[in-house]
């Protein structure tokens, strides 16, 4: 067992833990918004469309995360615009942007001369190679998010819950919706580093639905989702190390396992209470 803990003295592992914790906090706040509004599919669209930006950045020799952020934000804003003004079905528009992003990514990567060694790390994440600078970026973003929710909690909640009513009360609904679209896109793109494009959405949904087993209060779901996210991702990193399996997949596996175990315990407990009654 001492072997398992000796890993903590390595800097790369400390960085991985810090990244997992910060990603969990970011995903907890933004994911609560996504799950509450039932817009997980929009999250999927943003995530996959950002791959187009990664491909383009590879092709142009730029920072892939910059490309992902630009594509992610543009996609998020486009989806919100379609949802507010569109004459195209929103779900179809999301599907188009989703697959177009992936297609562009594949084309650009194909056109990039030579081998693109980091490509897999974007698809599946590479938390063990996270550097100090990236942790600072995650830390600053997490703090900005906390400030945003502290200042605008009520309008964010009200415009998510009932935008029409919010508009009758003079809240600039459209502005808040666009702001949250940008926030969603940046949060998702920053989290790609931890678990990759393919798996990132689960960080924004599984801890939230786990938290919602305990509370249906938006304000309380956020810290609780952060807690379950941190427990699941740290367990995932440890599990990946001990079992020698890919870290991102292990994180998602542990997050899901955690949800299922709690859900089953609750079902059994409720059955016992019913039987006693």
């Amino acid at each position, binding site marked *: 067992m001492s072997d398992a803990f000796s890993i903590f003295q390595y800097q790369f592992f400390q960085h991985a833990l810090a990244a997992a914790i910060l990603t969990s906090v970011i995903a907890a706040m933004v994911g609560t918004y996504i799950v509450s*509004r039932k817009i997980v599919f929009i999250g999927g669209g943003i995530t996959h469309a950002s791959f187009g930006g990664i491909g383009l950045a590879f092709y142009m020799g730029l920072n892939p995360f910059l490309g992902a952020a630009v594509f992610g934000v543009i996609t998020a804003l486009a989806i919100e615009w379609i949802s507010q003004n569109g*004459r195209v079905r929103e779900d179809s528009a999301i599907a188009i942007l989703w697959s177009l992003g992936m297609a562009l990514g594949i084309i650009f990567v194909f056109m990039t001369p030579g081998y693109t060694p980091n490509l897999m790390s974007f698809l599946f994440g590479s938390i063990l190679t996270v550097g100090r600078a990236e942790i600072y970026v995650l830390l600053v973003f997490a703090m900005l998010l906390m400030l945003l929710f*502290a*200042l605008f*909690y009520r309008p964010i909640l009200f415009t998510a819950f009932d935008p*029409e009513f919010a508009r*009758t009360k*003079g809240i600039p609904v459209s502005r808040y919706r666009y702001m949250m679209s940008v926030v969603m896109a940046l949060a998702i793109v920053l989290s790609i580093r931890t678990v990759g494009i393919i798996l990132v959405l689960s960080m924004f949904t599984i801890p939230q639905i786990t938290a919602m087993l305990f509370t249906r*209060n938006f304000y309380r779901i956020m810290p609780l989702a952060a807690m379950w996210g941190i427990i699941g991702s740290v367990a995932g990193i440890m599990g990946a190390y001990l079992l020698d399996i890919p870290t991102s997949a292990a994180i998602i596996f542990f997050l899901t396992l955690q949800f299922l175990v709690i859900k089953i315990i609750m079902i059994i407990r409720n059955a016992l209470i019913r039987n006693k009654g």
Partner: protein
Amino acid sequence: MKQPLIVIEAAATGYNSEVVLRDVGLTVYPDDFIGIIGPNGGGKTTLVKLILGLQPLFSGKVLFPSGKPRMGYLPQASQVDRSFPITVKELISSGMKSRNTLIPYLNAGQKQRLEEMIREAGLQRYANKPIGELSGGQLQKALLCRALIDDPQLLILDEPNTHVDKQFEQELYRWLKRLNQQMAILLVSHDIGTISPLIKSIACVNETLHYHPSNQISEEVLKVYHCPVDVIAHGPVPHRVLKSHDHE
């Protein structure tokens, strides 16, 4: 002569470029209680959304002669996502007009008003519970509190008596009777019969609007305007019995 709250003149509105309502004229006075009736898809909800400023005005005018009145809005129950993780307290407080959204929390006066409202509705036990735990009637009560918390001059209710039990319905009517002493009320209902003793006038909406300045409405008038509503009947309690009739 009383100053009207709202004057609508020859207004047209709709969705995208499709016109749903045309040539609508309506004047709402501060003590009005107008029942808005008409067939499904006739534009009843569109009309109230036009008044609330949620619908674009294609042509005509919507005027507020004494400034834009404070409006309280109770949307159709189907428009409310009951699984959304919002508490009863948060829901009701969302009816308070935020003059400055940069101040994220309620001030002492607002908090007191919120507590009063919750007490008045008898929702104290549920104040910190998510709305998903409320019954249909309790949710309507909370939504009505949200509409009333800002002391509106005009209360707009869209089908308030669907998905609720008889007990709540009776309570709602008592509330509305009292509220009408302080504010104008617009009530959209497909089932105007049960609520009509309270109503002072009727607006029949079916692509356009026909206003009847009394709550007495004859079968003949209904036939002319193709409104599928009831005619008056006598019974043990004041009520009207719905009677469908064909419309073109």
